[in-house]
């Protein structure tokens, strides 16, 4: 079957998609967007998190056909025009990236959290990121990164809020 979707603002089309393929497989293997990761393909780790019509989902649990005609944003689409989004920059600055395999999914989840709640409490951050596994960091620096991003976003463009 043919899948057409808007991914990161651009129309992408994939042909000969086998009905059993997930959105994650189509993004990674047919659309040349391997940023979303494949750590479990079972909905348990969050490494494949993308926006589907503005809502974060596990792309591994979405059948490719369900994504036809819809709007998708992946980690590759968070930064505009070569500049990093403050959440991305904060992950680098806070040391929240080690192997980085969890990072794309966590970035989408954190991006979504801060869009909904610009100053979440620590318990709120933990709850929002509870579906994203990280094996390297022990999560402390991920929490630091979300706090740093929130502060920088609150300070507005130019402010560093740190």
């Amino acid at each position: 079957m043919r899948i057409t979707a808007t991914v990161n603002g651009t129309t992408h089309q994939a042909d000969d998609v086998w009905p059993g393929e997930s959105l994650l497989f189509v993004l990674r293997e047919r659309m040349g967007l391997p940023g979303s990761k494949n750590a479990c393909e079972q909905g348990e780790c969050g490494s494949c998190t993308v926006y589907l019509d503005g809502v974060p989902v596990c792309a591994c649990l979405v059948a490719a056909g369900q994504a036809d005609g819809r709007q998708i944003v992946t980690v590759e689409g968070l930064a505009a025009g070569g500049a990093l989004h403050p959440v991305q920059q904060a992950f680098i600055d806070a040391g929240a990236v080690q192997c980085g395999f969890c990072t794309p999914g966590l970035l989408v989840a954190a991006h979504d959290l801060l869009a909904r709640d610009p100053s979440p409490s620590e318990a709120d951050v933990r709850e929002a990121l509870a579906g994203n596994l990280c094996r390297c960091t022990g999560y402390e620096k991920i929490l630091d990164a979300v706090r740093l991003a929130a502060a920088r976003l609150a300070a507005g463009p130019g402010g560093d809020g740190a």
Partner: protein
Amino acid sequence: MTTSGREPGREPGQSGLLAPAGRAPSRPRRAPDGVPAEADRPGAGETAGIGTSVRRPDGRLKVTGEFAYGSDLWMDGMLWGVTLRSPHPHARIRSVQIGEALATTGVHAVLTSADVPGQNAYGLEHADQPVLAADLVRYAGEPVALVAADHPETARLAASRIMVDYEVLPPVTDPVAALAPDAPALHPGGNLVRHLKIRKGDPEPTADVVVAGSYQIGMQDQAFLGPEAGLAVPDGAGGVELFVSTQWLHVDQRQICAALGLPAERVRLVLAGVGGAFGGREDLSMHVHACLLALHTGKPVKMVYSREESFFGHVHRHPVWIDYEHGASSDGTLVYVTATMHLDGGAYASSTPAVVGNAGTMGAGPYVVPNVRIDAYGVYTNNPPCGAMRGFGSVQAAFGYEAQMDKLAAALGMDPVEFRCKNAMRMGSEGPTGQVLDSPAPVAELLRRVQRMPLPESGSADLRSLPGGVGNTTHGEGIVRGIGYAVGYKNVGFSEGFDDYSTARVRLELTGGEPVVTVHTAAAEVGQGLVTIEQQICRTELGVGTVVVVPKDTSVGSAGSTSASRQTYVTGGAVKAACEAVRERLLARVRERGERELAGLRLADGLVLADGAGPVGAIGEFLDAGPIEETVQWRHRPTQPIDPETGQGFAHVQYAFAAHRAVVDVDTELGLVKVVALDCAQDVGRALNPQAVVGQIQGGSAQGLGLAVMEEIQVRDGLIANPSFTDYLIPTILDVPPMRIDVLEYPDPHAPYGVRGVGEPPTISSGPAVVAAIRAATGRDLARVPVRPEHIAGPA
């Protein structure tokens, strides 16, 4: 790297790094990245040398999704490889029929053991594991056949059509029973992989106070998030290039060459992006398989394990059964320890001999004990193979000896921290192998530091901070708080006489009129941040800000393994030594110019400096004569094999220590545990990148927590019952508490910059501290980890 579908992607040579010479012409479109020079370059006035928390150079690629992990690699016309694995833990293979599989549309190859051209056996220490099982399978999940097809689903379908006729044999699953004289021998030499003996002091000691306990540690999985993956590309001339996520390129290359029957120059390896390792990538997984399929089909072949397959595709942490007995005098001085340990190595040896070595030689813990008798056995069974995982033998022993320390303290009526401090090792202490600690060993200080840290508030009303969380299982009733302490230690680097070295090539040259350093090692970056450390060392030693890290591959000599907390020490030492050699040659050029006598020549901030004079000149001025390149092989001081009868000898080059204090809330009715705080003090010798050091300690602590309360591969009759992230639980952000980290820096005079390995110690003491805290809250013995709810709330 490409973000534009089938459009031509950016190739490594275009991304700002220097492509090593001698590359095969056909590069994957998504190929492993090196580190672009322009990314995260230090700003003006920032030296970004050692001791600074400079940002990782691959951070930008990782947050934009452009970093190419093994599973992201992609080439035009590539095939997908899959593995058919045995469903039985022990069986004879009568026949394998591949006809129907081969006839499946889209299938390009189906291979069995008959297609392995070289030696059908590999292994880190003993070549006892077949590439593809020939006549016998020894564990459930053992590879039997391979398929390459144009779609992964086609390959899986074809694999399901391979007919294997098995004669099922009874599995040997108990490591103690496996050593019985009448147990079936699983390998030609029997079922004993190694028996390590430590005999020190009085063989028949007596003591005022004696405590004994039997402990069991479950099988833990590394659970790195990036699955085993790689891409093998045939070179068209009988050789192959393998891009793979791994921990030690050269040991892979050696084993692959033996299996393929090819010389090293025909098998090139390049490190693909690695999504965590923790020991689980030290053994081969898909390496030989992908190469076989690529050579057979003449096409690039990619293999990526699913999460389920990953549980079968790598070794795990050894489950261990330990009987301890400790004796102390009534004043609280340790008199003796005896221990018998059985480590279940599973079907193949992997690194079992070295894990046994660690569990035994460090089995008394970081304490001074004059009389030691330890027997540690590594055993073959038909369980999943076990090998390296962060902490490597020391983790399992620490659960036992730290439980014993608490028991002894209670029996003596002493405070558990005071009791530990009274018996703690220090510099100059003699360990159970007779080795005298010749660098700082601040065991007591680490304990006192975590003890002094502020305690968390108790009694939050937020459900999310209670055991059971939003499961709404309690509003505070039945909750008891407990506090526990533990300290542990581990050797750094490879031990017992192993020739442990690394190789670094460093080049200093003018690029666009500016001095640029290029550093090339084969040391695997697995997430820990070695690429950052390599840059920092070059900046410090050569005074040049721009340092390019070449992709890791086998075109430079071995760096040894990214394991045993060794790379900052050993590859860091090699990079430092190579920089020193480059600097000597540059300074020789300075002296040749010799307008005046110059003392104290050195490099900093792009300048050549001398004592009592202004800058002698810019570094770049002395590079007009051409680049300077040096390749250096660097070794730490040698260790020795231990005596086979007494276990005595200078076995380990360095020890590293950490202590934890855990605070837990336990729902004593339901047996649920919430770890409220997990604070750590660790001596790192010298923190080359303080932020990365803290990240290692926090991540390592979380893995220890996982083993203490949730992580276990459940094996029944040789079968893994929970090979998924649905059933094998690793800690989430709700399970890991805030972690306060106190980093001590007491330099080791024997190590470059005084560094001490960092990655493993936090995984050793965090779990025992958590279990001690649960014991304190519940009064239960808890002799088995992970601790399950029924151990807390069930019948005592």
